[in-house]
């Protein structure tokens, strides 16, 4: 059995993140994102049956396991050159969209918005309204989000048996075909979610909202009383009053791996992949060969420059106290630092409203959060289309068993847009078992540390220049980091006191 050390543990998920910042006169002049957990997921896969990736990798992340499953299965299908029936792709997409809706609503109303209930804002004219909406377990929107998202993940359970952590996609398809019962049960969930989204989140019909195509039309549209009172309206009024549309731009370059495989055109996506060059303002075709990871500032055995995931290595080398400060690697696209997430996804796909807002105000914390709310609408619309297509093709195959001998040695990559952005799995198979497994998560891109040439990661860059009023309760940093949708919770903390604060730990 071949055992080769491979790339890193996925500490970069789920709450195990600390941010170290240096303040001078209350302004952030330096920032470091610190991944504080090493689990070694990729090493666990080495030597195992390749299919086990469908059980092991969803457990990398409790909130986006469907995305990991999708990426794992695509990597194996590429390695084994397997066709995928259209219905299997539709079901995979439907489930990924459901997980995405769940994420986008929970991130917005359970993780991002509760910061508005900080006593800091008790004199703000909107404070009473904010508390009534977002106070955990008491606010109306908080409670309704718990109820609606609980329903939305039922869609994954109808086809996968449970959410989170199922393994219902497999090389060649999915385990369960559509039938009238499943289609209609999912339809009922979607209809309920859509009605709530229209009534409470945007205060308008979905089609009308998705048809908005310019910054001017949006701001005029938001003036109407129903929209102003909606969650989107309230959040927009409040966050813009904090100037969040001028803060937290971070890195101008963006990356998307493309959203939802096209059921009828293998290899292409319903929303296209691409690299947005922040210097030229142009979208270029994505070339996965340009992806590479650096470890210069990470707790891994050093190597020079960046390595493509197929060639990566992960040897823990824990040396606290020096200039290496995290368990996260630094992924780069060529030599570019990039950001990823719903803003990147919709901008690269050419969403007219997002393109217009980005042109008018640039990337910023408000726009990132706004894009996430908008994507939930796109997902609601697209999920319905997937269901309708399934209904029209109930008898088409959902699974094509791999022909004997197809599960051969080789390599493959699976790339998807998870809720937080670009997610890739790279697998090498030798002697019938996993020789290497490499995962680059969305948060790895966004929470990247400095690279070999000392370039900061996106979150780090987005914090520079931010004014922090109370170093003991740096709510400004909380807003900005949470606008990037860090995995679940992000531990923002600072050490020391006085004029100059040093990094943690």
């Amino acid at each position, binding site marked *: 059995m071949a055992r080769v050390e491979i790339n890193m543990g996925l500490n970069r998920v789920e709450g195990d993140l600390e941010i170290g910042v240096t303040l001078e006169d209350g302004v952030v002049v330096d920032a470091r994102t610190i991944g504080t957990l090493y689990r070694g997921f990729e090493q*666990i896969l080495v030597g195992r049956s390749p299919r086990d990736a469908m059980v092991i990798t969803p457990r990398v992340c409790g909130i986006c396991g469907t995305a990991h499953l999708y990426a794992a299965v695509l990597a194996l299908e590429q390695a084994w050159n397997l066709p995928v029936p259209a219905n299997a792709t539709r079901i995979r997409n439907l489930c990924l969209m459901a997980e995405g809706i769940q994420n986008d609503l929970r991130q917005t109303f359970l993780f991002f918005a509760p910061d508005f*209930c900080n006593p800091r804002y008790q004199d703000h004219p909107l404070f009473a309204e904010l508390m009534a909406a977002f106070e955990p*377990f008491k606010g109306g929107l908080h409670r309704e989000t718990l109820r609606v998202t609980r329903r939305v993940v039922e869609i994954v*359970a109808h086809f996968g048996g449970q959410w989170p952590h199922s393994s219902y996609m*497999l090389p060649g398809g999915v385990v369960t075909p559509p039938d009238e019962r499943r289609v209609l049960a999912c339809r009922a969930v979607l209809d309920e979610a859509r009605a709530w989204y229209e009534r409470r989140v945007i205060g308008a019909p979905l089609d009308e909202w998705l048809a908005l195509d310019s910054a001017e039309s949006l701001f005029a549209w938001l003036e109407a009383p129903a929209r102003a009172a909606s969650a989107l309206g309230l959040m927009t009024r409040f966050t813009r009053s904090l100037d969040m549309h001028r803060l937290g731009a971070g890195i101008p370059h963006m990356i998307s791996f493309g959203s939802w495989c096209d059921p009828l055109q293998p290899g292409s996506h319903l929303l296209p992949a691409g690299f947005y060059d922040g210097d030229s303002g142009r979208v270029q075709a994505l070339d996965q060969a340009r992806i590479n990871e650096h470890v210069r500032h990470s707790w891994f055995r050093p190597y020079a420059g960046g390595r493509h995931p197929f060639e990566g290595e992960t040897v823990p080398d824990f040396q606290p106290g020096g200039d290496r400060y995290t368990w996260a690697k630094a992924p780069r696209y060529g030599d570019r630092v990039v950001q990823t997430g719903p803003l990147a996804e919709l901008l690269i796909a050419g969403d007219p409203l997002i393109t217009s807002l980005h042109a008018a105000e640039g990337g910023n914390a408000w726009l990132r959060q706004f894009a996430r709310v908008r994507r939930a609408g796109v997902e609601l619309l697209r999920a319905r289309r997937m269901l309708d297509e399934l209904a029209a093709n109930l008898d088409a195959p959902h699974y094509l068993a791999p022909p004997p001998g197809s599960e051969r040695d080789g390599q493959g990559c699976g790339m998807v847009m998870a809720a937080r952005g670009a997610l890739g799995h790279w697998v090498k198979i030798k002697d019938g078992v996993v020789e290497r497994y490499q995962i680059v998560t969305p948060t790895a891109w966004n929470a990247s540390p400095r690279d070999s040439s000392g370039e900061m990661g996106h979150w780090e860059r987005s914090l520079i220049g931010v004014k922090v009023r109370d170093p003991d309760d740096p709510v400004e940093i909380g807003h900005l980091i949470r606008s990037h949708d860090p*995995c*679940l919770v992000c531990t923002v903390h600072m050490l020391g006191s006085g004029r100059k604060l040093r990094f943690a730990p």
Partner: protein
Amino acid sequence: MATLFWMQTGACGGDSLAILSAEAPSLEGLLAEHGVELLWHPSLSHQSMRHHDQLIERILAGEQTLDILCVEGSIVTAPRGTGLYDSYRGRAKMYLVRDLAQRAGAVVAMGTCAAFGGVHAAPPNPSDCIGLQFDKAAPGGLFPPEWRSRRDLPVINVAGCPAHPHAMTQTLAWLTTGLPLRLDGLNRPAAHFSSVVHQGCTRNEYHEYDVEETELGGRACLFFNLGCQGPLTQAVCNSDLWNGVSSKTRAGVPCFGCTAPTFPRDEDLFRTEKVGEVPIHLPLGVERPRYMAYKNLARAAAPPRVKNKKMET
């Protein structure tokens, strides 16, 4: 009121997400109807980290009562027993867990990672993970087997990857009553770990007549060839459906035995190890010769609707 502090160690957050799917009671219901006061949850609390740190200080100083400590995630002990692969503010989280547990009325391991080590402890166990009071199936983890919390309870193992939403909320609700909580031999709440996943599986009739799939994607039983652990695994998955609608085995995904201390097992997870045509590991408590005799008869008795796999599952 029962105060509750939830902390995550080497975790994916799946148990925190799963508990949001509970309905009877829901997490909100635990707070509103069962007198749980949520002091802290890393994903849901909106107070500042300063508040979090002060809360811990007050609990450790005995100024804040801690009735229930929930731990989600493996206990990371690497490198070399320092636990620093999982730290908070430069301190190993395993020590924070240990200190808080000494103050807690009850300690609940939420999920297989906290109970037994879980997926992170799979070979080669890169971060030297263990459970709170077990190391895989062996008694003794972060705490020795004889350790007891303030209410004289061992660590309560709400196993599962993730734990079933109702196994979590119902165990917590029961703890608030002060009534005795019945546990099984692995310190799992007996009510949620006494039936097997096979019970209530809609593929049961296929198993009954020995109609077994050799490929995924079909309607029949997954036990003989595709690695399903349903007949061996104690959990409520098919008697209290996931997300209120289904289960992995109903959908056609093998049960991977995620509530067991050995999860994930070392061999191929989608293949059943067999002697001849019969699985090495038989349904819980079954004798091999009798089982084989029964299977041979069952196959001959199978009606066409079962043999031809005409039944929706």
